[in-house]
């Protein structure tokens, strides 16, 4: 708990402290109260990034979780050839370091040595253009989905494994079919795990950083330094030297994420009692 306090609470408090000041060229650090916050709330760059991750969240998270849920149920149903292999194969991308995943997809998306270039050549036209303004976010969403589908599947699958065998026996005695077992036994058993998976996916979307930051090298004109709030905070503090404002952006995002995660948590567990 001491370590926890040191590595977690201290930075948060320091961050809060920083967000209340502004570094002037003359006069050093000056207390400015909530001025940084009002600046952030009227900062188009900040809202641009926030809007982007919200869009990402609304589209990518449901798709990914639906696929993960379907995969977990199918694997658990025992109606699959090569169940063990499937489970491991789906999880492997999660073990691939994010940086490597992005580098790899970055190559694949590329015209020169990637598959996209090959597909376009075979089709005779530019069918796929991941490095374009419209498709960039989809391309990023694909990478994130690829990385985390198996991980979410595993979380849901292990929750299914904890369902006691007697429940299935009872359901079988009652003559319940597979769909009915899924609805009456499996989905309720999954609720907790599903809430956890949703929360972490939401957090992941808000934290979006690695993928755009590495792809930026390949598509510098498409991904601005404020593409996501996280990138904005990073670039503010390391390239722009605006540490105080970066801390403010970081705090707003933290509060926003925590609030949404909390709502999901409440909604997800309410019916338990």
């Amino acid at each position, binding site marked *: 708990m001491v*370590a*926890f306090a040191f*590595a*977690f609470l*201290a*930075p*948060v408090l320091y*961050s809060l402290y920083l967000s209340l000041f502004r570094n002037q060229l003359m006069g050093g650090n000056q207390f400015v109260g909530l001025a940084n916050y009002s600046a952030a709330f009227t900062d188009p760059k900040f809202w641009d990034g926030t809007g982007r991750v919200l869009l990402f969240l609304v589209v990518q998270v449901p798709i990914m979780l639906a*696929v993960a849920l379907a995969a977990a149920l*199918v694997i658990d*149903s025992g*109606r*699959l050839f090569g169940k063990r292999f*499937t489970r*491991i*194969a*789906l999880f*492997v*991308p*999660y*073990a*691939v*370091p994010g*940086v490597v*995943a992005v*580098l*790899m997809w970055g*190559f694949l998306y590329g015209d*020169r*040595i*990637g*598959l996209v270039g090959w597909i376009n050549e075979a089709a005779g036209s530019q069918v796929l253009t991941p490095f374009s303004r419209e498709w960039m976010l989809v391309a990023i969403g694909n990478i994130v989905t*690829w990385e985390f*589908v198996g991980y979410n599947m595993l979380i849901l699958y292990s929750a299914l494994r904890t369902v*006691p*065998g007697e429940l299935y026996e009872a359901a079988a005695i009652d003559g319940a*079919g*597979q769909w009915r077992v899924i609805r009456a036994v499996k989905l309720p058993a999954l609720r907790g795990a599903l809430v*956890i998976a949703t929360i*972490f996916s939401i957090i992941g979307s*808000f*934290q979006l*950083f*690695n993928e755009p930051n*590495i792809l930026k*090298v390949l598509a510098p004109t498409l991904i601005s330094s404020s593409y996501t*709030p*996280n990138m904005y*905070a*990073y670039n503010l503090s*390391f390239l722009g030297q605006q*540490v105080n404002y970066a*801390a403010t952006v*970081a*705090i707003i*995002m*933290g509060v926003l*994420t925590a609030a949404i*995660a*909390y709502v999901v948590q409440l909604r997800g567990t309410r019916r338990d009692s």
Partner: protein
Amino acid sequence: MAHSFSRPRKSVVLTLLMAGLVVYSLAPLWWLLVSSTKTQEALADSFGLWPAGPFALFDNIAAVLTYQDGVFVRWFGNTVVYVVAGAGGATLLATLGGYGLAKYRFRGRSAVFATVIGAVAVPGAALAVPTFLMFSQLGLTNTMWSVILPTLVSPFGLYLMWVFATEAIPTELLEAARVDGAGEWRTFFTISLRLLAPGIVTVALFAIVATWNNYFLPLIMLSDRNLFPLAIGLASWNADATGVGATPVFHLVITGSVLTILPIVAAFLLLQRYWQSGLSAGGVKG
């Protein structure tokens, strides 16, 4: 209904659907593996999913290991240090903390819960930047400690362990042990630890992956190339390769990626076996 079998039959349709998903998961890795056997020229000219040109895998590996005075080997060693110290410590702390939170009532428990949830929710980057500023005040930046210390605290692991301990260890069992006169430590080591084993392996697995994977924290903490973990090193090679007037070292980035993936996938497969035996031995199925 075709589905109403209590003993499920194997389904070809479901298998094919899942096979599609498996291909999606594995095809990029296959591309990476195939590409690591190609020379730079073959990379640009040939179809990505099939080997072509001279078989250059060993030349590529040798090039990766010796490029820039063998800095890759150094990055590998650094990564191992970060994983052992960081992920190992994180697992230990998460296990003790999660168990304590799940099985002991104390004042402020709900406040701790709220803090942990909040901690999970705070963006890593949000925390990393202030941590960097704090560490630079303390003179810790650009040392191995600056990567290890923040890694030790894993709100996610703590949360997972907490949930797991709440569900896997019946409180009655602990009470029975106490009635039998077993001390808290003895109860923990003889009863709880065994029940927690699958959870511990899971948390360790995630901690290892997270540390091996870590990009943002070392990116801001370290400026000395000799302290880089693999992920940062590879990204820096990639940046070298794509900039203006760059030396194209795509084959090094690709082969280096393969070498980076192999140990973690191997570790995962190894742990997966423990994890599975842990699940059945841990009495989850009763």
